[in-house]
């Protein structure tokens, strides 16, 4: 296990999920001798410059060719390497989606794919570089787990867990540098097991990625309005933690999902699919991107446009409770 301490948690939070991923990969390489990293001309963006220089024999850059990247990674995996692939989220997923279907889904060739800067963080570059669709697409591919870490510490923990997991895993990195800390100390992380962060009787908020922090902030606002919230970090979108959903469905007046993804196909869809199996389940409010490409802009600007800021989340919840 990677050693976790407060100093590291602070550092990782300051540098954000991408750079943390690069550091984590370098640290893991010392323990996992079969580790291999395949990238598409993104070593700097992925925080992998040190990895590339220090362990060049376990690193290959295939240039800007994502379809080839998945095939090369799958071939390496077949011969016993533990392979991590990475590039920006749209190119790591949709650009090579059929390769993922055939190699990871159909053939069950295990790799770990890390989608950089998913969600809205690259909004100033336009929606070519945002990624609000990939969870919906990847969720429909069998034999693939999808994890969206809530903070930088969870990036470290999910990377290690993914390498040891039974199937291929897509790790969806959201948030920018200076990413807020959700987990201030070490904790147990398991793919497929949700983490209850706060408890409350009125509302359950299931969230993932950078939106977990916004959900916690929203819960604080709701508390001031005498609405108590259970906030659950549903870091694994597939396989979704069914027990956690069932438990919340027993007592919550309202179930809410908050995600930095299209409301079609993502966490909200995954939870709604489970709630439909439960008799008299509570109403579900899905908060996310409303199936629309808006004009681009900064991360904060786009969160505001899509009503994902804490106050906007809490307002929607209040409206749906009355």
């Amino acid at each position, binding site marked *: 296990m990677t050693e976790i301490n407060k100093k590291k948690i602070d550092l990782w939070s300051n540098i954000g999920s991408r750079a943390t991923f690069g550091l984590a990969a370098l640290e893991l390489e010392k323990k996992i001798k079969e580790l*291999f990293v395949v990238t598409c001309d993104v070593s700097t963006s992925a925080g992998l410059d040190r990895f590339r220089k220090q362990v060049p*024999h*376990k690193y*290959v850059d*295939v*240039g800007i*060719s994502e*379809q*080839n*990247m*998945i*095939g*090369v*990674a*799958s*071939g*390496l*995996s*077949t*011969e*016993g*390497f533990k392979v991590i692939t990475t590039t920006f989220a749209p190119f790591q997923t949709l650009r090579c989606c*059929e*390769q993922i279907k*055939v*190699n990871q889904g*159909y*053939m069950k060739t295990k790799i770990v794919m890390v989608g950089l800067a998913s969600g809205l963080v690259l909004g100033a570059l336009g929606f070519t570089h945002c990624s609000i669709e990939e969870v919906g697409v990847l969720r429909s591919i069998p034999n693939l787990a999808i994890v969206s870490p809530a903070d930088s510490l969870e990036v470290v923990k999910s990377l290690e867990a993914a390498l040891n997991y039974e199937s291929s895993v897509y790790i969806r990195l959201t948030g920018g540098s200076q990413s807020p800390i959700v987990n201030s100390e070490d904790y147990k992380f398991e793919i497929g097991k949700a983490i209850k962060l706060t408890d409350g009787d009125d509302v359950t908020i299931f969230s993932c990625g950078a939106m977990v922090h916004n959900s916690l902030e929203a819960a604080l606002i709701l508390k001031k309005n005498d609405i108590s919230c259970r906030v659950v970090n549903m870091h694994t979108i597939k396989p979704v933690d069914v027990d956690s959903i069932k438990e919340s469905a027993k007592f919550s007046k309202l179930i809410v999902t908050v995600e930095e993804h299209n409301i079609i196909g993502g966490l909200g869809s995954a939870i709604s699919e489970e709630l439909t199996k439960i008799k008299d389940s509570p109403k579900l409010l899905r908060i996310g991107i409303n199936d629309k490409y808006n004009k681009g802009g900064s991360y904060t600007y786009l969160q505001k446009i899509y009503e994902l800021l804490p106050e906007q989340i809490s307002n929607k919840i209040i409206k749906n409770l009355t």
Partner: protein
Amino acid sequence: MNNLEKKNAIDLAKKLKKKILDLSFYAGSSSSHFGGALSSADIVASLFGEVMNFNKKNFKSSSRDRFILSKGHGCMVYYAVLNILGIIPDEKLKTFEKDSSDLLGHPVKNSEIGIDFSTGSLGMGLSLGIGLSLAFKRKEMKNRVFVLVGDGECNEGSIWESALCAPNLELNNLTVIIDHNNFQQTGSNDEIMSIKNLESKWSSFNWNTILVDGHDINKLTTALKSNNSNLPKAIIAKTIKGKGFSFSENNNDWHHKVMTNKTYQEAKEEISKND
């Protein structure tokens, strides 16, 4: 009986063509990719009969050479050679394209019968081959990797991503063979998407490129065995689609077609006359 050792590839090629005919008949009304399997038969015979370290004894061993049928629709030639090698039993061969069969119209990964990869979605096999070749280089293993690609398949952009990549990585343990039969699903290459000079294309991507008659087993074998470069090798094998039967040669109706009993019997007669 089915042990290939010390039998030559010319003999194997003849057997492959007969097996492909049988398989196309077993497929019945579900139809099969007859022409593309036959255009690859002499290439596959050269590989498995003379070149590759792959046989019934070692097909599960890490020491074996690797074969990827990137043009997965040509699967009948693959199943046929694995059957003749004694890896796929005769009974299984008869389940071709039947319900719940291990032998579908495109190969499905199955280590029990010597199939390392599921292929059929065109343009993916060469990248897998690069991954394997890179793994062998990094592990300092001597295995070789052979990838069979179609000329129509060269329409796929992903082929050219991998074509650019392999020479950059100096993977001289990797060979791609392009079955250049001049046809694709609905017409000739020139009618659908002309690929012009494949030799100059692969050569310009910095592959050690060899143009060869894809039905001359001696020349194919020599080209496949040659090893004088630090670069990966591309063999452009000029072939005839449907090779081996008068009704199917250069007749693209046989790209994917039902083998009727009448045609099957006529084809068997033609083979016996030529034997």
